[in-house]
C-alpha cells in the first residue's frame, strides 16, 4: 500500500474556480458569498477605470470590479457564461466579473506552491499561489489584495 502520512496541520481548503481569458483562477470559498448571473451593471460617473459600475443586490449597492482590466487582460464582452462573484474582504463586499465559474476544488495547503516571480507586473501581487495538476495550472487569487486599502475604502463609498 502506498499511503502518505497526513500532516494534521496540512489543512484542506476549498476554492471556487473561475475562468478569465482561458486561464483557471481560484478564490477561497470562505470569501465567496454568492455567484450571480450578470444583470444590469450601472456605470458610476467618475469611477476608476477598473470599476465597471454598481449593481442592486437585494437593496444593497455592490460595486463590480472589472477583473480582466485589473489583471491586465483584454477587454471582453459578457455572455451567458459570465458571472459576478460576490466576495467579502475587510468588511467590504465586492462583485468581481469573471468569464465563467467552473467548480469548487479541495486543495491541501501543501499542494499550493508560492506564486512564481515572473515579473514586476502589478497583477502579480494579487496572486496567492498556484496549484498544478497534470499540466493544468490553477492560479489562486488573494481577494484581500485585489484592491489596496485606499481602493477598498473607495469601493465602500460607491
Amino acid at each position: 500500500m502506498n499511503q502518505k502520512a497526513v500532516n494534521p496541520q496540512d489543512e484542506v481548503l476549498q476554492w471556487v474556480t473561475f475562468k478569465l481569458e482561458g486561464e483557471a483562477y481560484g478564490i477561497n470559498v470562505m470569501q465567496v458569498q454568492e455567484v450571480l448571473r450578470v444583470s444590469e451593471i450601472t456605470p458610476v460617473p467618475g469611477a476608476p477605470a477598473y470599476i465597471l459600475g454598481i449593481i442592486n443586490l437585494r437593496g444593497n449597492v455592490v460595486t463590480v470590479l472589472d477583473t480582466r482590466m485589473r489583471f491586465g487582460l483584454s477587454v471582453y464582452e459578457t455572455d451567458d457564461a459570465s458571472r459576478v462573484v460576490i466576495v467579502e474582504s475587510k468588511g467590504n463586499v465586492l462583485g468581481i466579473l469573471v468569464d465563467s465559474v467552473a467548480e469548487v476544488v479541495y486543495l491541501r495547503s501543501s499542494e499550493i506552491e508560492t506564486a512564481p516571480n515572473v515579473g514586476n507586473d502589478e497583477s502579480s501581487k494579487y496572486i496567492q499561489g498556484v496549484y498544478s495538476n497534470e499540466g493544468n495550472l490553477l492560479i489562486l487569487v488573494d481577494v484581500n489584495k485585489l484592491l489596496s486599502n485606499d481602493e477598498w475604502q473607495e469601493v465602500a463609498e460607491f
Partner: protein
Amino acid sequence: MNDKKERGLATQEKALTQYLDSLLMEIPEATFDEPVTELKTSAENIAEVVVEQRVTEVSDTAADIIHQSAAVEAANVANDTPVWGKRPFKALFFNVGEITLAAPLEKLGGILTECDEIKVIPGNTARYLGVILHRGQTVRVINFEHLVAELSGEPLSSAGDALLPPNRIVLIEGGSIGIACRHVDEVETVGPTDIRWRSGTTKRPWYCGIVVAKMCALLDIDVLLTILNEEHAHG
C-alpha cells in the same frame, strides 16, 4: 233601536277589554324598561371607554412606531447629509450619455430646450459645450461626462466620446450653469432612506449618494456649483 244598543254595548265592552289588556301589557314593560336602558347605557359607556382606550392605545402605539421609525431613519441618515436630503424631497432624473443622474428639484432652476442655440466659445475647455443666453443671463453649458472625467482624473468613458447632441439643458440653482442632457425622465419624491449616502469622502464630492431603486448617482448641486465657480474664478 235594539241593534244600536247592542252595538253600543259591544263597543264599550271591547273598549274596556282593550284598555285592561293594554294596562296588563304595560306593567312588564314599565318594570324592565329603565334597568335595560341603564344597562344599555352602561354597556355603551363601557364599550365607548374601551374603544376610546383602545383607540388611544393604538394611536399611542402608532405614534411610538412613527416616532421610533423617524428616529431610526434619522440615525440612518448620515450627519453630513445635505440639509435637503434629511427629509423627503422631489428629485429630477435625467440622462447624460448612458448615465442616469438625479438632482434635488429645489436646487434646479429650469429646463431649456434651445440646445441648438448653444454658442461655442473659442478656447472652451472640453467640460463646457459653450454658452447660451437665457433671460438676459449667460448660461455656461456643461458637458457632464467631460467634467467628471476632468474632476476625477479618470479617462473619459467610451460612452462619453459617443455623446450625442443634447436635447435639454437642466439649469442649476442661480441659472448661470446648465447641464446638457439627452433626456429628462421624471420627477419623483425620494426619502432619505431611499438613498445610500456617501460620507467622509473627498473623491467625487459632487455626488452625495446613490438612489438605490434607480441605481443612479444623486448630485450635490451646492458642491458642484462651488467647484465650478471656484475653478471659473481661478480660470
